């Protein structure tokens, strides 16, 4: 409950401005993975970042949590600007971790294979200073919150299903009590019935804890269920951003229109979708 979001700051909990990242190309020159990306997310709000492979959406997600250093631009959580370098010293590192947490795409590789569900949460809780008894109690509450029972608490990841692993990964991120939760294709690898469960869980967590969500996905249909605002990326740039219903119902950018036209639905004709895609 010591999240930075409760320090009296009443602007957006996450503000990102002019974020830019380039990579050197083997043949000289630079690849622009992200350029001029900026957005605001209020407390309890949620932003979807949509794009196809190579659009730079994952680069943005990893810059938000500090796994990739941005070339330029600012990321501020509750008014506090995050430095581009990882901080020195334990206290600064932990404070930074409480700003933004992340859930990764691959539920099979994002959990330590040696730790049981409970140990996984305890590691995070103890790292952030919880005392033994309090950590135990908190771990149980977190497991309960994401819908995992005592069997899952004592199981190692290989004995869990994809959906259970992803629930555990969400609990692990929440253990740190972050102000912002970044989800990078967090439901893409799940079966549809499980995907819907996890989306429901995220919605519930957002309501209950007021954590702000940044939801990175290639799937427009999924994004609309969980986000208030949507940012469409293409080749490192934001081609369109605005309230999700507007973006989906009345897309202004031809690329967004192409993306929407390509989503299969009843009565959909791929040939027509291809024409829209080519027309962009």
């Amino acid at each position, binding site marked *: 409950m010591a999240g930075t979001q409760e320090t009296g700051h009443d602007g957006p909990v996450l503000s990102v401005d002019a974020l830019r990242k380039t990579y050197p190309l083997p043949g000289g020159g630079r690849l622009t993975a992200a350029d001029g990306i900026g957005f605001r997310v209020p407390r309890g709000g949620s932003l979807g970042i949509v794009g196809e492979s190579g659009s730079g959406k994952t680069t943005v997600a990893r810059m938000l949590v500090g796994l990739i250093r941005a070339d330029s631009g600012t990321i501020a959580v509750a008014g506090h600007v995050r430095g581009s370098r990882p901080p020195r010293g334990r206290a600064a590192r932990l404070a930074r971790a409480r700003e933004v947490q992340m859930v990764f795409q691959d539920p099979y590789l994002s959990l330590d294979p040696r730790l049981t569900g409970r140990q996984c949460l305890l590691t995070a809780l103890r790292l952030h200073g919880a005392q033994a008894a309090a950590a135990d109690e908190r771990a149980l509450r977190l497991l309960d919150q994401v819908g995992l029972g005592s069997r899952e608490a004592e199981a190692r990841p290989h004995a869990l299903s994809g959906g259970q692993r992803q629930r555990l990964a969400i609990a692990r991120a929440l253990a740190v009590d972050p102000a912002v939760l970044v989800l990078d294709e967090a439901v893409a690898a799940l079966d*549809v019935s499980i995907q819907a469960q996890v989306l429901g869980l995220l919605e519930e967590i957002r309501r209950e804890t007021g954590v702000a969500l940044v939801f990175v996905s290639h799937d427009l*249909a999924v994004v609309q269920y969980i986000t208030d605002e949507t940012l469409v990326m293409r080749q490192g740039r934001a081609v369109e951003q605005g309230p999700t219903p507007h973006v989906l119902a009345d897309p202004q950018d031809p690329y967004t229109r192409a993306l929407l036209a390509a989503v*299969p639905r*009843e009565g959909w004709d791929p040939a027509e979708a*291809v024409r829209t895609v080519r027309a962009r």
Partner: protein
Amino acid sequence: MTTTQPLLDIAGLTLELPGTARPLLAEVTLQVRTGEVLGLVGESGSGKSTTAKAALGMLPAGGRTEGRVTVDGTDVLTLRGEALRAHRARTVAMIHQDPRAALNPVRRIGDFLTERLAHAGVTDRRAARARAVELLGAVGLPDPARHVRQRPHELSGGMLQRVVIAGALAAEPRLLLADEATSALDVTTQAEILDLLRTLRAERETGMLFITHDLHLAAAYCDRVLVMYAGRIVEQQPAPALFAHPRHPYTRGLLGCSPTLGGTAADLRPVPGRPPSLAESFPGCPFAARCPEAEPECETWAPVVSPLEPEGGPVPNGPPVPAGEAACRRLPLAASVAPATHGATGASGASTASGASEASAASGAEAAR
């Protein structure tokens, strides 16, 4: 050639592996006709891919197999050696999810295609070269003459999937098996590949078994859709009817939890629980534990696929097939409608019905054991 004979005919296919609690496939019966796209939908572990592999005669070793798999009149499961190789090289072709895994990274695109052509009987190198370029043109790759000299890493995922499709077409197969063939692609690329496959089908009259986890994709793309759960077929209907009137609770559940454009959060109704693993066995209906409509009797009811009463009227332009089938105890008893449907729909209807009764006998034997 008789037009009534289905291209792919799987009848009562059951596959059990040692060390698993339930069969991988249980009494799977399906037909794909010439020029037809049959969608196969289900979550992980439902047996979709295993069913497709059966058409290639590639069932896991050490398994206990029952039933029959016929492609174009040939019993695939009894093929051995050269005959099996010829079957895989010429009659059936499979397109997988990951095109990069299907292509040797150090060989050129042209070599991949000429090798496939050699298997199909085009042994003259010059002719094979020319045909390779032709095939790449047919799958819509611009400048095919240049692409035959390239290696896989030089092409994007969408282009590679076109190459794989070109390779699949090399032998002019009668049946295409697409196993999540577009799932790894971006939506815009997916639309292009689907457009291509549809054009090819129109030109060549190939039948296609289209496997996907995406119900909406199946609805949009296939003629008929078959829903699988825990190795069993739970429902089969023409695509428009399946979406307008899903009959099995699992199909309804899948539709209810698949995100659709224009939906709102309240529309998304998750199916509780999770897809069953191979370690779980079911005395009755495998979906009973997750089914919102389950009754105590469902726990012991051995599933039987029964013909459905037509609902919502006949489908315009649809092929003359029975309205559909489903395996749910709570649906109106099929026996009352079955004989009527029989006479009306001819051979295919009869074979499905006999498949179903055979299936019920078999599950009886299973219960007895």
